[in-house]
C-alpha cells in the first residue's frame, strides 16, 4: 500500500486552546538523573519582533543518552523527555530539564548532547525543526549533524551560559537566522 501523508496546515493563532492541557516546562521532575539545566530563550521574526503566540516543543534523551521510546536500547529511566510551552509576550520560553547523554548513530559513533526542538505558530505552514546543543562541550566538534551545518551558521544551534542557566535564542528569518532542519 502506498498512501501519501496528510498535508500540514498552520496551528493558527488559537493553538493554545488545543495545546494547553499538555504544557510541560519541567522535564527534570524528581526523577531524571543528570545535570539539571535551566533553559531559556527568545524567538524573534524577520522584523526582529518577538514571536509572542508560538509553541515550543522539545524532545530529548535522558542523562544516559536513552530515549523513552521502544526503539531506544538501554535501561529505562523515569525521564520522559518531552516538553511543551507557549512563548510569552516577549517571545520567551523556559524549560527546566537535565542535560541529555550522548546518543549513538548507526555505526557506533556518538552524537554530542542535544535537544530536538519544534516550533509551531501562526504564519508557519508547517512546524520548524531544529536542535539545541550545549556550550563548552568538546564533543560538538565531532557531532555528525553539526558537521552538516555550514561552519558560519553552527553557532546558531549552540546555547550560551546566561545568568539563570543556558540561553538559546531563535531567529526565524534574516542574516542571523537559526539553522532549521529537514529530515
Amino acid at each position, binding site marked *: 500500500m502506498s498512501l501519501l501523508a496528510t498535508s500540514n496546515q498552520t496551528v*493558527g493563532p488559537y493553538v493554545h486552546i488545543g495545546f494547553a492541557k499538555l504544557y510541560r516546562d519541567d522535564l527534570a521532575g524528581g526523577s531524571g538523573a543528570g545535570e539539571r539545566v535551566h533553559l531559556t530563550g527568545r524567538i524573534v521574526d524577520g522584523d526582529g519582533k518577538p514571536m509572542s503566540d508560538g509553541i515550543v516543543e522539545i524532545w530529548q534523551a535522558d542523562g544516559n543518552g536513552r530515549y523513552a521510546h521502544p526503539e531506544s536500547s538501554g535501561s529505562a529511566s523515569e525521564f520522559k523527555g518531552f516538553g511543551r510551552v507557549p512563548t510569552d509576550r516577549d517571545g520567551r520560553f523556559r524549560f527546566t530539564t537535565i542535560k541529555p547523554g550522548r546518543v549513538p*548513530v548507526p555505526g557506533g559513533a556518538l552524537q554530542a548532547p542535544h535537544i530536538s526542538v519544534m516550533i509551531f505558530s501562526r504564519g508557519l*505552514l508547517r512546524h520548524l525543526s531544529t536542535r539545541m546543543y550545549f556550550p563548552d562541550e568538546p564533543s560538538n566538534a565531532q557531532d555528525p549533524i553539526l558537521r552538516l551545518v555550514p561552519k558560519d551558521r553552527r553557532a546558531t544551534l549552540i546555547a550560551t551560559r546566561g545568568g539563570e542557566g543556558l540561553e538559546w535564542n531563535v531567529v526565524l528569518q534574516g542574516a542571523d537566522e537559526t539553522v*532549521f532542519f*529537514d529530515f
Partner: protein
Amino acid sequence: MAEIRGYRRPFWDTQPEYLFPHYLSTITRAPSKPLVIIPQTLSEVTAPIFGYDEIGGIDNDLTRQHDGQPIGGRMVVSGRVIDENGKAVRGALVEMWQANAAGRYRHEVDRHDAPLDPNFTGAGRVLTDDDGRYRFMTIKPGSYPWRNHNNAWRPAHLHFSIFGIGLPQRLVTQMYFPGDPLLEYDPMYHCVPDEKARRRLVSAFDWENAMPEFALAYRFDIVLRGREETPMQNVMSGLEQGE
C-alpha cells in the same frame, strides 16, 4: 547500535512551503535560508509517547465539558490514523481544537464580534486504538472573518495535532467540510500546491456513523509519513561527507 529504518520523504507538492505570501503572516516568519537536510538518527525516529494517564476519560467529547449543552449541530468526527504503508498507528495522541458554532474561539486574542458559548471550550484529545481509530463528539464550528485581506473568511474547520511514533510523523493539520464554498477563497487551504492533497483535507459526510435523532457524522482519515522498507544504507556515508 541497530540499523535505523528511516521515514520516506514527503511526496512533491503535497506539503506547503514555509513562504506563501497570500497568507501574510508567513512573510516575516518563513525561513529565508534553505533548510539543512539531515539523516534520521535515533533522535529523529523516536518521539514522545503518551498514555492514558495524560488523557481524561471523556476528553474526546467536547459537548460534555460544562454543565449545559453547547449550541450548535452535534457531530461525530472519526477516522483512522495510518501511515503511508497503510499500517495503523496505535496509541497516537490526537489533539483537536476549534471555534464554536458562531465562529468564535475561547481565546483572548479572538476579537471576532460573535458570542462565546459558556458551554463550549473547543478542545479535546484522544489516543488511537489498536486499529488506529479515533472519535470525537463535538459541534460543527462556524466560519469566521480574519484580517488577512479584504472580505477574508476562514472556511469551517477543525485543527488537528498528531504525535506518531517518530518525529517525522509529527503532524498539525486542519480538517474542512465537504461543499464549503469558502474553500476556494482560503489561502490556508491553497498553501498546499497539489490539488489532490488539498482535497484530502476535506472530510467526508459519514451517513453510516450518524446517530439517529442525535448527531450527524464526518469522517477524516489521517496519514502519517511511512517508513522505508529497508534500513538506511547511507547514513554514515552521508554524515562523513559533512565537512
